[in-house]
């Protein structure tokens, strides 16, 4: 309750619409009810971590935000505008939203630089030289400027994921979605990716991260959301979430992590 009033006061103060507003979202895969009446509101600049057991609907939730999955009912607003169902409307909304995947999904037949410039050139219509300048700036920011001319297969997993982050940033999105960005990485590479994400958070990017990295949640998140069986079970500040979880299921989940 206090959480809600705090957010309301904050958004009223800067009079901007929330970055993301999801209102009673329901999603089905065949007979499987993947998201059950989900409500979520994310303000500009907020960092949200979503956790929960596998199959709980975390990925589905963030994939609904950029319409990789379609919600059967409910409404989603991005920066105050309701998501359009038609293809061009969906594309316009996606330009505001960057996404990073568990499996990186880099384009294997293109160099790192080409991966990063394809969107700015073909979608945003930027000249090649300008797109490359932007791409090099972001590659610098994720600390792999020297890999620009290599192919994804020549890079380590951690480097590939940082390229994926740079590629998403090159579209200059206002919101970044992370779908288990460190789950496919060898342990020694997790930190370099998390550090990149922490940098991004410090710059005020609106971020929604599905992750099991509880250290990251503790140090970066404004709010932690726990999901189970397609429902949001608990929503709290990281201190309270880890110290005094409200629900039994959250306690069980946190117990299993350690």
């Amino acid at each position: 309750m206090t959480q809600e009033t705090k957010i309301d006061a904050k958004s009223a103060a800067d009079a901007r619409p929330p970055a993301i507003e999801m209102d009673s979202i329901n999603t089905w895969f065949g007979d499987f009810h993947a998201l059950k009446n989900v409500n979520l509101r994310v303000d500009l600049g907020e960092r949200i971590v979503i956790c929960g057991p596998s199959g709980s609907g975390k990925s589905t939730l963030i994939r609904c935000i950029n319409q990789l999955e379609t919600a059967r009912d409910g409404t989603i607003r991005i920066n105050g505008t309701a998501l359009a169902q038609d293809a061009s409307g969906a594309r316009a909304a996606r330009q505001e939203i960057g996404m990073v995947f568990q499996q990186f999904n880099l384009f294997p037949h293109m160099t790192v630089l080409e991966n990063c410039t394809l969107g700015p050139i073909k979608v945003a219509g930027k000249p090649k030289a300008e797109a490359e300048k932007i791409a090099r700036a972001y590659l610098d920011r994720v600390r792999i400027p020297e890999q620009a001319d290599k192919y994804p297969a020549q890079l380590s997993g951690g480097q590939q994921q940082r390229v994926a982050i740079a590629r998403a940033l090159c579209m200059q999105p206002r919101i970044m979605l992370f779908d288990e960005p460190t789950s496919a990485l060898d342990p020694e590479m997790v930190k370099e990716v998390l550090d990149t994400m922490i940098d991004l958070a410090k710059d005020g990017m609106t971020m929604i991260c599905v992750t099991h990295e509880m250290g990251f949640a503790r140090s970066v998140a404004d709010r932690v959301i726990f999901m189970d069986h397609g429902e949001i079970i608990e929503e709290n500040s990281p201190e309270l979430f880890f110290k005094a979880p409200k629900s039994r299921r959250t306690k069980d989940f946190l117990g299993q992590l350690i």
Partner: protein
Amino acid sequence: MIRDYGLNEFFFIATAIQWTLALSLIAFGGGILGGLIIALMRVADAKPFRWFALGFIRFFQGTPLLMQLFVAYFGMAIIGLPTNPWIAAAVALTLHASAFLGEIWRGCIEAVPAGQREASTALSFSYWVRMRYVILPQAARIAVAPTTGFLVQLIKATSLASIIGFTELTRAGQIISNATFKPFIVISTVAVFYFLLCWPLSLLASRMEQRFSRATTR
């Protein structure tokens, strides 16, 4: 009058290879263009395109090529065009190749990992940008071997055009066989010519398949 099977007759058959090759190349060239359109429609976001492509493929896969040749040949007369075996054979084989290549390439497009499509969508690429720059370059690598394999099938399939009076390799063989009454030796000659056309292509296809499987199992 019965002719002997001599050098003249042999060269008559040999020169007909050019018509088999010409018809194969026309059908293959047209099939590449048509197949690309059918494959792209088959994986389009809009349902009407997908349905049209599916119907087209099902029709040409579900009816004999011989019947398709007859329909093209006699269909020309019905719509008031002069019947021409060249055009009828070229049209029928092109449509046939379009359907089969379309279905082969649909498989290749779908073999590109789903994550590539998702990443393109998340970067708000249009269907064209996604296909042209992300999906098709990766699908093309997978497609080279089965496409070469289909070309072998297509060369052999042109033999059916002999039935509507198109004088290619098989028809030339029939003419000589009827004149010399030596069907076994004549048809064997024809078979050897087909083999010489197809075998190098088969070798090429299997070599490319091996190279591809090595490249992907790594």
